[in-house]
């Protein structure tokens, strides 16, 4: 029973000391003086507001990416006990005492520090020598731009960490594949690949590029397995299913779960509410939910309603009318009907109320029991305050002359009869007899006489229309567009027959309680769609750059400047590393092309296994660079130097690959080899020298004198801030 005591308890641990040393050095380089400067640095001003909103549990939409990265930053704030009370309004603002700067910046810094050992491991897993791996890790360690980006509350270092983790775990998995399929560690690394991929995508959509690269690599490897006759069909199927599960299903599930947590955390209404549909807004605490709580669900004849345009662009607005009429003649000489204006108004107003009326009956109240309006029914819409009917006719609209004018009908007793019948078409109906529902139904109003559709044109009217938005009848209804859809937002059953009473009723707030809850999937789809389609105005930025500038690092970004001294922080790469990385990529490309052409002619310059190694390393490192860089040429958004950092990380990994290949296969004699090693050492000290030279700009201290700063301006295009004396 106590047999185990007979044997000595031995724990043997193999510790790769260089790996540990690298980790420690990485931590030191990223964590040193993390709280300095105690001021808002560059995009912290942007991410910080989201952290604050997380702390306050207020809903927001950020079109720059999915929420996982923001959540991680917020986690730092949560652990540091941040209460969210800070006004993130300008770069350089001093942090107040309640902001836990250290813990807010800790996670990105940790992620940045761990990239160093990850680089080592990746090269080791690619079967490169210890020296090459060490070189890769040191290059990452001494890369000024990566250090700068890691030390603040920014997302790139987290993204790079997950990208490298995904690559590493796939390589581990692939290397295990040959000996121990379906073992524990095999599963572990496979699953970790998927998890890291989805985390990378969850931080920024840029992670998608690396995810695709890994999927393609996995697909290629599996294709080779198909050709391998040693696998039976069943085992191939198992392999396929395992990969599909780990690399597709689990990442998708995780991605969904990010949104689930995001939506679960943020339950209060906030500044971005109006981007979302009424239904979504009603699901948030406060805001619209407070108003719409307990409204009757089914719109009936006699209902008093406000109609919100579903599109919400250029801004959310409600169908509106007021006593002013269209001018008899517009400025360009065209005439109008001179009837009462109908517009779309971006604010809540008593003039936004409309009453649904049955054309066959006179009464404007809901009968008992209420008669619900169904899809296909024909209704009149009566403006609550002025009791005029919504009308359209063959008169050109004020700003969109190809569409019909929409007005509230005034009978001038001339040959223009009222045309005020509208057919209600519920677009998201389940059956053709669906009832028109508050908030949920998206409705199209089709004019019975002219089959024009009520539409928000998006143009805003001139002075006479108080700059409200134009509403038109679109005659050529070209398919489905959200600007033609309206949904009922506020709703109550009208009770007062007399106009005076009704006015009082319209002014009173709605009451009654029915809460509506959207399912998670509906919320997710809407939020995801909004994130993808929300377009910020194309903003010019002083430090924006084009993708071509990045390779040569012709651009920099000033992150922070000390209010009095010359101390400043810049996003600037290590010039030596960037230049060598470019050279390495070019050399890799030329050599590969040379080998490839020669191999095609059956001339084998290097042994087969070296060739395989060369291709695999190039596929991962060069491919990683290409997929993370080239797509930016197709993008139309504002680009910054930091977008290039994931690509440059991969490009840096290519340097030791090429160097080792040169020393192994092209330096044939011993003398040449030792000369080459000496060169490498010299080159490396150059890299270190450049790192040291620029570290004042990386860490923001010590402060430099203007002359020193001027000496650092190695390129004319760099914008280093020099105070005037």
């Amino acid at each position, binding site marked *: 029973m106590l047999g185990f005591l007979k044997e000595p308890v031995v724990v043997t641990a193999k510790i790769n000391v260089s790996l540990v040393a690298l980790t420690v050095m990485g931590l030191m380089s990223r964590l040193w003086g993390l709280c300095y400067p105690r001021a808002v640095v560059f995009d912290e001003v942007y991410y910080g507001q989201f952290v604050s909103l997380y702390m306050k549990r207020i809903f927001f939409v950020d079109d720059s990416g999915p929420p996982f990265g923001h959540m991680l930053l917020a986690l730092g704030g949560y652990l540091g006990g941040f209460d969210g009370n800070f006004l993130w309004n300008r770069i350089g603002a001093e942090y107040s005492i309640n902001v836990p700067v250290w813990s807010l910046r800790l996670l990105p810094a940790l992620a940045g520090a761990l990239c160093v050992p990850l680089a080592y491991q990746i090269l080791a897993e690619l079967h490169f020598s210890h020296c090459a791996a060490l070189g890769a890790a040191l290059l990452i360690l001494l890369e000024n731009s990566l250090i700068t980006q890691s030390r603040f509350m920014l997302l790139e270092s987290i993204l790079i960490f997950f990208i490298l983790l995904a690559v590493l775990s796939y390589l581990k998995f692939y290397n295990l594949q040959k000996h121990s399929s379906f073992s524990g560690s095999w599963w572990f690394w496979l699953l970790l690949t998927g998890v890291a991929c989805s985390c990378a995508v969850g931080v920024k959509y840029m992670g998608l590029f690396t995810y695709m690269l890994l999927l393609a690599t996995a697909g290629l490897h599996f*294709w080779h397995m*198909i*050709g391998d*006759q040693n696998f039976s*069909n069943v085992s191939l199927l198992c392999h396929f299913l395992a990969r599909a599960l780990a690399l597709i299903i689990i990442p998708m599930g995780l991605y969904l779960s990010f949104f689930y947590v995001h939506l679960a955390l943020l339950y209060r209404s906030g500044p971005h509410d109006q981007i979302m549909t009424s239904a979504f807004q009603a699901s948030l605490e406060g805001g619209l939910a407070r108003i719409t709580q307990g409204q009757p669900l089914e719109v009936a004849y006699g209902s008093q309603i406000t109609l919100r345009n579903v*599109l919400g*662009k*250029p801004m959310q607005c409600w169908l509106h009318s007021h006593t002013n009429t269209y001018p008899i003649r517009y400025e360009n000489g065209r005439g109008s009907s001179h009837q009462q204006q109908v517009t779309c108004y971006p604010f809540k107003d008593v003039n936004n109320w409309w009453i649904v009326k049955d054309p066959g009956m006179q009464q404007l109240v809901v009968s008992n029991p209420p008669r619900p309006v169904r899809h296909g029914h024909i209704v009149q819409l009566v403006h609550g305050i002025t009791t005029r009917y919504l009308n359209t006719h063959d008169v050109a609209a004020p700003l969109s002359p190809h569409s019909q004018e929409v007005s509230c009908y005034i009978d001038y007793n001339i040959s223009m009869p009222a045309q005020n019948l509208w057919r209600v078409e519920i677009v998201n109906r389940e059956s053709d007899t669906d009832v028109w529902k508050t908030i949920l139904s998206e409705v199209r109003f089709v004019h019975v006489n002219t089959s024009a559709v009520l*539409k*928000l*044109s*998006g143009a805003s009217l001139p002075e006479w229309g108080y700059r409200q938005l134009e509403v038109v009848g679109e005659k*050529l209804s*070209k*398919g*489905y*567009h959200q*600007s033609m859809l309206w949904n009922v937002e506020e709703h109550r059953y009208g009770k007062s027959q007399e106009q005076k009473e009704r006015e009082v009723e319209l002014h009173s707030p709605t009451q009654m309680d029915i809460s509506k809850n959207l399912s998670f999937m509906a919320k997710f789809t809407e939020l995801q769609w909004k994130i993808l389609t929300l377009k910020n105005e194309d903003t*010019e*930025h*002083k430090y*924006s750059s084009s993708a071509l500038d990045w390779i040569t690092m012709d651009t920099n970004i000033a992150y922070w400047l000390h209010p009095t001294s010359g101390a400043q922080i810049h996003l600037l790469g290590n010039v030596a590393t960037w230049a060598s990385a470019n050279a390495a990529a070019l050399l890799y490309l030329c050599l590969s092309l040379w080998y490839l*052409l020669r191999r*095609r*002619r*059956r001339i084998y310059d290097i042994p087969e296994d070296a060739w395989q190694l060369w291709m695999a390393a190039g596929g991962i490192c060069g491919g990683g660079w290409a997929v993370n860089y080239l797509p930016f040429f*197709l993008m*139309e958004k504002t680009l910054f130097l930091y977008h290039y950092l994931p690509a440059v990380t991969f490009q840096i990994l290519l340097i030791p690959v090429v160097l080792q290949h040169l020393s192994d296969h092209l330096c044939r004699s011993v003398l040449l080899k030792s000369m080459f090693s000496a060169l490498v050492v010299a080159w490396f000290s150059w890299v270190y020298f450049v790192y040291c030279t620029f570290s004042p700009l990386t860490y923001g201290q010590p402060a430099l004198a203007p002359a020193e700063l001027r000496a650092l301006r190695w390129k004319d295009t760099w914008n280093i801030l020099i105070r005037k004396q």
Partner: protein
Amino acid sequence: MAPPSPPAPLPPAGRARSRRRVPWRRRRSSPSRPALRARRLRAPHGRDCIPRRAPRPAALRPSMRRARRGAARGGYPRMPPRQREPRRGPGAPPRPAPPAATRPAALALVTLLSFASRFHRLREPPHVCWDETHFGKMGSYYINRTFFFDVHPPLGKMLIGLAGYLSGYDGTFPFQKPGDRYEQHNYVGMRGFCAFLGSCLVPFAYLTVLELSKSLPAALLTAFILIFDTGCITLSQYILLDPILMFFLMGAVLSMVKCNSCADRPFSASWWFWLSLTGVSLAGAMGVKFVGLFVVLLVGLNTIYDLWDLLGNLSLSLVMFGKHLLARVLCLIFLPLALYTAMFAVHFAVLNRSGPGDGFFSSAFQSQLIGNNLHNVSVPEHLAYGSVVTMKNLRMAGGYLHSHWHLYPEGVGARQQQVTAYLHKDLNNLWIIKKHESDTDLSDPSSPVEFVRHGDIIRLEHKETSRNLHSHQHEAPLTRKHFQVTGYGINGTGDSNDFWRIEVVGRRTGQLIKVLRSQVRLTHVATGCVLGSSGKTLPKWGWEQVEVTCTPYLKETPNSLWNFEDHINPKLPNISLDVLKPSFAEILLESHMVMIRGNSGLKPKDNEVTSKPWHWPINYQGLRFSGVNETDYRVYLLGNPVIWWLNLVTIGLYLLITVATAVALKRGVQLTSELKELSRVVLHAGGQITLGWLLHYLPFFMMGRVLYFHHYFPAMLFSSMLTGITWDALLKFCAGFLSPSTTARKVYGGGFLALVLLILYSFYLFHPLSYGMVGPMASHPSSPMAGLRWMDSWEF
């Protein structure tokens, strides 16, 4: 170009010696399978027959019997001799191959039908339809030789103009808007030309598929699909660029495929012919629309693949390989480039009169056009202090720097004199260049001439109001992040905020500044911002002129670049602007820049319903060519839904088949020679076509510009060819399972017939879409289209 007459029948006498695989169709006389094999092995040119290590006729049944490499079980199938005699091995053709005369006959039939369907009711409707208003008008411009601007390269419109000219159209019809009646003007020539090219698509597709799949039914199916597709008919019947584009595109594909088939006889006359024809077609496709780039890509990829193959062929010496490479570079790069340049040369030679397109081009270019106010003008060449100048912004349709006696209104920056950009010529556009520090009267004729140099600091004085161009750190009226630009000072005396550094793009210090040709940047000395025009229109107080700002973002955009257009300085000698005549290369480059800018300027507005690429393959929504109301003659561009949905299903089917075949081959499944041939057709020929489809479809997802339904039609051609190939292979494969060959033949023939009948019937239903609908809309029961509005999004 390509004759409509049917080309020579496919298997010419010389072809017998070819190394090409003999299509299985020709084995019609083989009495039975073993006999066939024996015969073929004896044949002297037996490269194409079953490989010797093939698992012998055990695989008579084309069922995909899985067998490990080398593990195939031998043994002839036990077949009663009586049965053997009439039987044609199940894998053998289930249908007798057509006699040699069938192919030309089929081609003639296809061509005839194609021409008949395209030329039927060509005159109708006798008014301008849809984009005829653009391309007809541009054809007229060529006839009238007036300069215009369009976002597409000129070849298509030149051909339209040529067709109109030859058919007696005099270029006088204004083509103002869709619906205008042609009256006595001769428009049929232009329509007929487009219809002619559109009709050629069908035989081209037929020949391409025949060449790729070696199967007459596949080619016929493709041809029927294209003949009876209402969309293709409609698009070919009007004065549009698309039939011309598709003609060249299909021409390129056909000649590429033909050239590939000649690969066994490189450098023969026919090889050279098809290779250079490919190059010519590429130039044509690129010259009609930039979309032609996709077919250039297709041919390029095919060529690279081809060369890679040749490189791997060790029996070919490197010198030979070099010859191959050179031939392709010559025919596929230099020849098209030369032709492409030539068509621009013709374009600029023909259009030598001033017209509506002048404003899009630079001042130097405009000076070349007869009737333009810059034509035959002489001005001093180099800018000097004291010169009176106008400055034109370099953004497209950018205005002249302008100022007038009006102040910015209250609340818009400082209340100083407005500075705007104005599109028309006006006295208020004149500015005097002065030295920044001295205010000597430079108009004194005795003072020496001093030239303005790159890097000088100058002051610009407005001639009419004597105020200086001025900027300061107030926000601009519309672009809030920029600085306001004003006119400041009295009689030329201002402050240091009136100083601007003048710099020429790409020059060194001290160089002179040329009128018209120097691109100039004006940097504000005090704030470091750059003078630019934002392109936004000012409200009423600014007379709806264009906003001018000083931008602190130092970007090289045409918005912040200017050139000097008018230049008055009595002390300098005038030179004729002809000296400044841009070289042809410059004109070519400039016109491309303008076209690309114009193309990317076609952005959809917010709240505008636009066609999305995913709409297209499902035939979601068409385009109204003519007519809206019930009384109008209505033509609606919409693909025949049966055909389009068949195409759509086929793409999915093809992917399935390809994956299955590729995996089976990779797993080393042994196939019979028939199945091998079939899989070759599916993978190789189908792959080529699918690549074409992808190249002509996917890029649209990434385009920011406004897209239309008709952009899909080039891709649709590829999709139809794929349908022909896939269904033929599928039917053959299915028929191969059935044992008596008669049944197999019946199934194969029946399936083919069913498809053709389906296409014919659907065409019968939907033909009014192309040939015109009059009367009530489809929702009305008495309409000819009643009940055919299968999707709500169709508008007929």
